């Protein structure tokens, strides 16, 4: 039983990039590749092996031979051709740029071979073939239909994955059962997976405590973790989420923020460690640059550092021509942030206060996410925009949307990510183009490392912290995918439940690969029960007492 935060909007993995959707669809469908959950390196799935031509223009994939769709039809290269030519380039939110712009054609010399011909060399191709970007859907079900509105997206989806769709009671649960004919030998282990939909974050945690749910793969409130970690029978794993970062995007059209010294000053004025320690209970990593450290091969720790130093910050503001005026203020700015979670907003409040400390009159505007999107992406009306959980992986080419000048869409704005800082550096553009073309991984890494150095120097965006994705599960749940690419994003085909008798015979309680981070002890565990029940009783007693005294007085006075 898995706790889920909301009903998926679709179970078709080829037309969405959202969490709840992929969490469920990921059990029903496969993709060409899966990701190793710690290193985020693509590993074979439907494509068992592949070769790239030396010029990087042709990729040949050898497909798995014993896979069938859940309705018994054989899976073949025709399904791959259909998915990558007809579906992904049009209907996936990132499809046009990732696949449409790069794939010329998919050829199918035989049933188990798919040959991708590219328009130009495009190195991120392989790492964009995971389920998140490229779930493979059946041609015989979808061909000739309206892909987006096909009823199979919502009922009885047909995939090749480890579990079969059984029922979906909207708002309550989704029930999947074991696929007895799964192409991967002896998998999955579980007979049934039920996703129980509990929208409230705290209630979802309570459901784990009452035993209604066995596993919560994401969205566990940080404030609950130190308490839950101490509970017997529960296990908790924390790791940096898959590339998502909390970041401040500067509007470079603002005359004040267009000065690099001001941006450097702001970076020196913000105490990232304080934010991580207090707001996120020490559960997150401090960010250093535009790429998340989990993308290890391309991540560059050797970038300009902006240590927390108020004096340095104030000096930089003075040099930029913004000395303190009467009242101690230098200039005013508006910080806009979407309300995803309370923790996101709290971090923004700390940032506002730290900026006030150095004389910046910062006003915080918290908006519902759709309104935020309208204000920042469509109207481009902000000074600093906080994007609390922007993904920077799996391939570093992902951040091209934010920094490459081709994505400046001031005249023709779109919702969703584009280069809203209006950052324009021809060297950066050039490096992004090279990085996308280069097939040699060592050379690619060098390109992205240089990119990170330049971007952190120019600082159109200041990253604050790398998001964590703690998951909590019962002690007897074994094989939970637990790396940066785990949680919501990985399949449950390796998960099994340990029974009491198995404990004694097997004796395995900790999967050896799990990295367990204990929460910092500086923060006291909030005991929600006593925190809430005591005030209630107190309030009731006080009200009753006041009332009784009042009545007594009233009776005495009327007796007189």
């Amino acid at each position, binding site marked *: *039983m898995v706790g889920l935060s*909301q*009903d998926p*909007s*679709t179970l078709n993995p080829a037309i*969405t990039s959202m969490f709840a959707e992929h969490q469920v669809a990921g059990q029903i469908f496969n993709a060409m590749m899966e990701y190793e959950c710690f290193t985020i390196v693509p590993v074979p799935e439907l494509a068992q092996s592949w070769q790239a031509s030396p010029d990087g223009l042709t990729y040949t994939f050898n497909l798995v031979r014993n896979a069938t769709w859940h309705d018994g039809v054989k899976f073949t290269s025709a399904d791959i051709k259909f998915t990558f030519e007809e579906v992904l380039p*049009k*209907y*996936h*939110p*990132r*499809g*046009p*740029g990732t696949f*449409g712009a790069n794939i010329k054609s998919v050829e199918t010399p035989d049933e188990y071979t798919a040959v991708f011909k590219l328009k130009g060399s495009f190195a991120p191709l392989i790492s964009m073939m995971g389920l998140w970007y490229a779930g493979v859907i059946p041609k015989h079900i979808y061909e000739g239909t309206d892909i*987006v*509105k*096909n009823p199979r*997206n*919502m009922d009885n989806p047909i995939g090749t994955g480890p579990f079969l769709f059984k029922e979906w009671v*909207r*708002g*309550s*649960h989704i029930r999947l059962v074991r696929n007895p004919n799964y192409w991967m030998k002896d998998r999955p282990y579980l007979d049934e997976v*039920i996703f*129980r*939909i*509990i*929208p*409230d974050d705290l*209630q979802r945690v*309570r*459901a784990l405590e*009452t035993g*209604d749910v066995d596993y919560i793969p994401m969205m566990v409130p940080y404030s609950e973790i130190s308490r839950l970690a101490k509970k017997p029978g529960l296990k908790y794993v924390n790791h940096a989420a898959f590339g998502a970062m909390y970041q401040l995007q500067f509007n470079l059209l603002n005359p004040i923020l267009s000065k690099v010294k001001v941006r450097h000053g702001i970076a020196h004025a913000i105490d990232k460690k304080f934010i991580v320690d207090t707001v996120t209970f020490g559960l997150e990593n401090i960010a250093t640059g535009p790429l998340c450290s989990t993308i290890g091969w391309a991540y560059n720790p050797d970038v300009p550092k902006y240590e927390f130093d108020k004096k340095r910050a104030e000096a930089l503001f003075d040099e930029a021509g913004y000395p303190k005026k009467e009242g101690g203020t230098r200039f005013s700015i508006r910080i806009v942030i*979407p309300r*995803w979670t309370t923790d996101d907003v709290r971090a923004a409040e700390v940032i506002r206060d730290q900026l006030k400390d150095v004389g910046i009159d910062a006003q915080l505007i918290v908006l519902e*996410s*759709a*309104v*935020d*999107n*309208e204000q920042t992406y469509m109207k481009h009306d902000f000074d600093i925009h906080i994007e609390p*959980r922007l*993904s920077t992986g799996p391939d570093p080419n992902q951040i091209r949307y934010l920094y490459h000048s081709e994505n400046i*869409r001031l005249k023709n704005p779109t*919702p*969703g990510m*584009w280069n809203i800082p209006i950052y324009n550096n021809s060297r950066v553009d050039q490096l992004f183009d090279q990085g996308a073309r280069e097939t040699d991984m060592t050379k690619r890494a060098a390109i992205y490392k240089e990119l990170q150095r330049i971007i952190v120097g120019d600082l159109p965006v200041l990253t604050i912290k790398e998001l964590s994705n703690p998951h909590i599960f019962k002690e007897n749940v074994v094989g939970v995918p637990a790396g940066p690419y785990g949680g919501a994003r990985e399949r449950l085909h390796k998960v099994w439940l340990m029974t009491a008798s198995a404990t004694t015979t097997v004796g395995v309680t900790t999967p050896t690969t799990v990295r367990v981070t204990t929460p910092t002890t500086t923060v006291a565990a909030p005991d*929600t*029960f006593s925190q*809430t*029940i005591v005030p*209630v009783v107190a*309030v009731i007693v006080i*009200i*009753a007492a006041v*009332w*009784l005294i009042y009545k007594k007085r009233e*009776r005495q006075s009327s007796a007189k």
Partner: protein
Amino acid sequence: MGLLAYIAKRILLAVPVVLAAIVVNFLIIHSVPGDPIVMIVAGYETDPEYVALMRKEFGLDRPLHEQLLAYMIQVLQGNLGRSTFGKPVLELVWERVPLTLLLMGMALAIAVILGILLGTLSASRVNSVADTVVTSLSVTGYSVPVFWLAQILVLVFAVQLGWLPGYGYSSLKADLTGLAHLIDVLNHALLPAMALALNQLALVVRLTRSSMMNVLTENYIITARSKGLGDRSVLFGHALKNASLPIVTFTGVQLGYLLTGAVLTETVFAWPGLGRLLYDALLWRDYPVLLSMFLFAAIIVTVANLVTDVLYAILDPRIRYGE
């Protein structure tokens, strides 16, 4: 004019009200920033081609008045359309109706029955300890926010005591059918119904108490007492009927509020009813579902008002309509 003619007239009058509600709701919803496409891509990098294609797919590229006209024609034909995510709206709403009606019914029953009993008790013994306790509790009950109360109920009865289930509408691990399933569902409904009922209960208690206190000073009550009738007979046989008019009005009006309360309660208790559907549709800017939910709410409130007025005539023979 007879009662039937009156009801017919009221129904005819309700039609323009509901139509106006559709237009106003449509305009309000579309003037709120964001649309389903924005919700799908918010916070992600997106290609402009995709956005353009999806807007076309959902008909959002057409001018607003065209969209409104198309929607009105569709509704008048009895077709509520399809959710942005594919399912027919009527099917989505219909599968949620029983569960929300169950919850609202239970909440209303708890509020009205318990409220009238406690209110009557309190009015018959003004300034006694019982009265003081009931009145204080009802003030507290009315002041407590629903979402907070819901959390407390779960903490106490589900987590600490383990007496009642705190989430969902049925036990998913056990395969229950027939009567066992019904009992299981009722068991699951108890906590959310309590949370939903408390505010209403507090109001019914206060209302019954003050209304009863007025009625109890009337001459006919003194007559009844002087005939030697017992307390129970006077209170429930004579006084309550006249005191109940404001309670009936109130209950009718409260149906609308119960639906609002259901949004919060159903979200906290993961109860898959209409409130949750509304909440999800709002998050996703699922226009067809949202509009249908508002239409549904408008119809419920209109019908509830009508039923209230008819009940008046039955309870108080002096009231005549249309004269």
